């Protein structure tokens, strides 16, 4: 049986190809690298039991995370899934100064340039919005945002009172359909109209003992009915 392919020896003998020991060592490292990459791809998107367990192979997770390769490549690069988290998000913080004046901060600040700067703030707002449905994590980002802007105001010599010092809201802008663009109603044609805004999380900003805390404002529908009214109808 003859082969039309050149033998490994003849290829290896070509000028400049490394020796066999080096080739074997590098091939082994390439295998390890692609194994880790395959684990990242398969374990970050609807993972099978096997893929989830392969993440626990010693060194794999550390290697992937350190080099920023531990990504859900499918989800991350899909750009748009038609899901609610694919919209633009925003965080608004109202702070009341001791003088009674209100200061409002919006993330991302519209028109921030260069655009990559805008994207940094936009990503932070997106994460805050995505976490809003998670009871354990929803206040983590808004609290850091409130703490930052309070510290900034104080550093600038602006005084805030004690107790409730403001309010923070996380929301997103629902996307306009093509039909809405042609609507006869002006508010439907305006992408920043209130009809497109959806509030995801709202909290009062409190200062207790010098620390910043958030007290979530529950929507009426989220609050359990009073016991006396349960049988009223």
């Amino acid at each position: 049986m003859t082969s039309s392919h050149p033998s490994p020896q003849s290829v290896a003998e070509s000028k400049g190809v490394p020796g066999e020991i080096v080739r074997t060592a590098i091939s082994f490292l390439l295998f390890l690298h692609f194994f880790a990459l395959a684990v990242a791809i398969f374990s970050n998107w609807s993972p099978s039991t096997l893929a989830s367990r392969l993440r626990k192979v010693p060194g794999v997770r550390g290697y992937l995370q350190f080099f920023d390769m531990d990504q859900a490549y499918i989800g991350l690069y899909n750009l748009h899934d038609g899901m609610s988290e694919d919209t633009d998000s925003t965080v608004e913080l109202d702070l009341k100064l001791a003088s009674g004046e209100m200061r409002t901060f919006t993330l991302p600040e519209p028109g921030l340039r260069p655009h990559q700067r805008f994207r940094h703030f936009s990503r932070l707002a997106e994460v805050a919005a995505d976490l809003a449905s998670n009871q354990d994590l929803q206040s983590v980002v808004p609290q850091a945002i409130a703490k930052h802007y309070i510290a900034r105001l104080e550093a600038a010599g602006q005084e805030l009172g004690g107790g409730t010092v403001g309010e923070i809201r996380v929301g997103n802008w629902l996307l306009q359909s093509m039909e809405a663009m042609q609507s006869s109603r002006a508010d439907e044609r305006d992408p920043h109209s209130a009809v497109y805004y959806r509030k995801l999380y709202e909290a009062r900003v409190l200062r207790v003992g010098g620390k910043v805390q958030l007290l979530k404002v529950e929507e009426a529908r989220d609050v359990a009915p009073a016991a006396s009214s349960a049988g009223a109808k």
Partner: protein
Amino acid sequence: MMGAVRDYFEALFGGFGAGWTRFWFRPCDPAPLSLIRIAAGLTAFYLVLTYTPDLETFFGRDGLEPLEMFDSLEQESRGLDRQAIVHQIRESMPRQYRFSYLDDLDSPGALQAGHLAGLAVLALFTAGLFTRVTSVLALLVLLSYIHRGPLLTAQVEPILAFVMFYLCLGPSGAEWSLDRWRANRQAKNRPVSLQASDSDPPGAAARMSWGATVAIRLIQVHLTLVYAMMAVGKLSSDVWWRGEALWWLVAKAESRLVDFTWLHGDFARLAFDAMTNGVMLYQLAFPVLVWNRLARPLVLGLGVVVWGLLSLVTGMVPFALAMLIASLAFVPAETVRSALPRCCE
């Protein structure tokens, strides 16, 4: 019968071995790798530079991304099944295995100094000075920003991180670099007896390197995997199947660069439908056709159109650039050399 089976497997493994050696180790011209170094270095420099006005806002003592926040995100999410977290959040979660030299810099002065040092490293890497060292340092700088501000990162950083990782493995400073300029100057200053003779191969041929092959192949294979995953994701997504995805990207009023929403009506609907399917088809075709010598120029040329369009629609210019930069690994060295003016060499 057994002999035929044995012969088959011998031929199979022999062919695979030869192909493997040829694919990964046959020396190649490092010109494309050097071009990728310049482009990736400039992009990384720009990305890090955009943090300059907001350094303290994000990473300062009372910044928007305090290290304590990472701890609480880690602790809270570790209790849950990490996989159960929405993927978009998971991507932004602080990593358990992370490194950032910015962690220890929280005073304004130290932060500024660390930031300037990072920019200097990226500039040296882009210019190709001590590239073997600065390529590793530049990767560490980029990773430091990624790991210090995971909630600020998105699609571009992982692409740039793998490109810069692979650039560390090959002679990315071989061409169009201060290293090359220094080497040329040293060669000229050498005594005549030590200078290259007529029988020595000319410059480019002398710089053929299997290290360049490994680095370029790694970028090619990794990029192909990313495209394949992009395509698989789109195939499993309703909005891409229905031809609506591009409209929904256009409708994101806050993030787009150019407003295309004035395009509406029946014709526009068909145009968005066609463009959505075009993007999907391109990402589906890339992993296969880019390996075909004849189709490759067409695939790479179309990439400029597709990513140009997507960058206008989504506002993700650095991401689109990073995809195009990684695609340079498929451009033949002769094309790269003929495209760049001689004065750069």
